[in-house]
């Protein structure tokens, strides 16, 4: 054992971090090494100095002041969640082609706003997708997009770019949870349609069975995403919810269901649905981290870049922009969270979320 390693481990010994066997080995080395012995003693004495330092005290007025602020309804101070971002990271984000392309996109939208038709302006495609009956048919089995409070057909969404930030696990999880709950509600509706009511025959059983299987498939895919996020400790939810998600993933696996006729598959699904008693609270219960370190975001986005099907699952494709400079871009819209997710898969850390706000009148 060399002294450098020994001294590092002595530092860990001071905090009780070494297993007993390793500690014994380190102490044995230190006993026979003058340098390490002196180091160990100096460490302990330095710690003694620290322990003798005076501490600040909070008096009764601290608590009283705090309760007054709580009772007055004072909100969270804004700087609470402002994580310091290293300068190198800021430069990297600014320099990614995705950010530049997003700005180009916004500039293009404003430039073509007065002359172009809504159909030709990329961002107008988003509220059309968001408005029911606005002419854009959702992909089979996908959710009806949630209506947004925007002007009717033909009006350019008066959007201001509010924020560009990396897509986070938190945001993805919220999107997945909301979509899961919506599919669960639809599945229960289709399951009820398949139940006979007295003497009346079941209406269109084949159609309802197929729709039920589609909903179950979506629930399974979303359940896998959520369990994956939980496994990586990006988000958390209660054990009953986790157990029910696992039940969905195991029992409603689309490959298993696909081996059977729709009616038989629907029968299996109908047996599972009543056991899902807690997962309906998923959207309210799911908790993400308040903030993510750069390393966590790096890992998350690299994994996401390798699994584009996850983004396709969560964010319905709104507009493929094709190649812009070196990047191929698409804007995708989810049911909650950001209005759009910008994906530029050829650049690193380029999966961004863009929040659009209506212009103030």
């Amino acid at each position, binding site marked *: 054992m060399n002294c450098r390693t020994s*001294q*590092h481990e002595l*530092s*860990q010994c*001071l*905090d009780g*971090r070494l297993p007993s066997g390793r500690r014994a080995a380190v102490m044995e080395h230190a006993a026979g090494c003058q340098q390490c012995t*002196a180091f160990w*003693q*100096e*460490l302990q*004495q*330095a*710690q003694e*100095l*620290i*322990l*003798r*330092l*005076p*501490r*600040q*005290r*909070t008096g009764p007025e*601290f*608590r009283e*002041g*705090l309760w007054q*602020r*709580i009772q007055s*309804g*004072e*909100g*969270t*101070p*804004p*700087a*609470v*969640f*402002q*994580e*310091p971002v290293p300068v190198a990271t800021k430069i990297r984000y600014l320099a990614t082609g995705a950010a530049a392309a997003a700005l180009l996109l916004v500039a293009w939208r404003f430039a073509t706003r007065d002359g172009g038709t809504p159909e030709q302006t990329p961002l107008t495609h988003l509220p059309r997708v968001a408005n029911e009956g606005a002419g854009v048919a959702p992909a089979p089995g996908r959710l009806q997009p949630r209506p947004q409070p925007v002007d009717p057909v033909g009006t350019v969404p008066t959007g201001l770019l*509010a924020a560009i930030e990396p897509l986070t696990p938190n945001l993805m999880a919220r999107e997945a949870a909301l979509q899961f709950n919506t599919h669960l509600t639809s599945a229960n509706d289709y399951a009820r349609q398949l139940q006979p009511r007295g003497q009346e025959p079941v209406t269109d059983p084949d159609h309802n069975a197929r729709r039920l299987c589609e909903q179950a498939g979506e629930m399974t895919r979303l359940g896998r995403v959520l369990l994956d996020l939980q496994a990586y400790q990006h988000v958390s939810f209660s054990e009953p919810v986790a157990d029910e998600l696992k039940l969905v993933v195991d029992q409603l696996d689309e490959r298993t269901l696909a081996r059977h006729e729709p009616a038989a598959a629907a029968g299996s699904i109908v047996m599972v649905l009543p056991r899902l008693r807690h997962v309906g609270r998923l959207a309210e219960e799911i*908790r993400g981290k*308040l*903030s993510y*370190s750069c*390393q*966590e975001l790096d890992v998350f986005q690299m994994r996401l870049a390798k699994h584009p099907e996850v983004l396709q699952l969560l964010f319905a494709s709104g507009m493929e922009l094709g190649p812009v400079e070196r990047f191929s871009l698409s804007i995708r819209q989810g049911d909650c969270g950001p209005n759009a997710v910008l994906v530029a898969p050829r650049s690193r850390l380029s999966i961004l979320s863009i929040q659009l706000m209506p212009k103030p009148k």
Partner: protein
Amino acid sequence: MTTQVQYQPDPGTLVAYHRALAEHADGLKTYAARMLGDATAAEDVSQDAFLALYRHLHQVPAAAYRPWLYRVARNLCLDQLRRRKFKLSLFRDLGGDDDNPFTPRDECAAPADQIAQAREANVAIERAIQELPAKFRDAFLLCEVEGMSYEDAAAVLGCPVKTVSTRLFRARQRFKSLVSRLIKV
């Protein structure tokens, strides 16, 4: 855009919150005071952190209160420092300034020369802490001074546990050499 939610915690959560207030308020203020060099600002930061915790009690498990509070306090301190470009004059406040009295650990009456000696030593120690490189000082303040575990410190700093261990080791090496005249081996 944020919406303020009037959250009413359940009794169990409220008890845990009160416990956290009793256990961590002083430590949080001490930590913030070292970050900002100002005990009054440190008290505001501590109160802000506890206020934020109250608003997010439904999101933070009780076991995570401490690292959560310290992480929030760190963010608030760094924000203040960025905005004010504050020069740390820590030892002025924590070294025993009469304008800002503190509670010494040993409250027994001692001769005046011993008090003066202790005060001088404290000033030297505080100066040594401030001379540590920022990353090492972060780990040092949390683990060595506040007695936080490596895991909690890693959660506060947003870095791996091994990084905390390494930074703490280097901080201790540096600190030890800075206060060598106070250490008799």
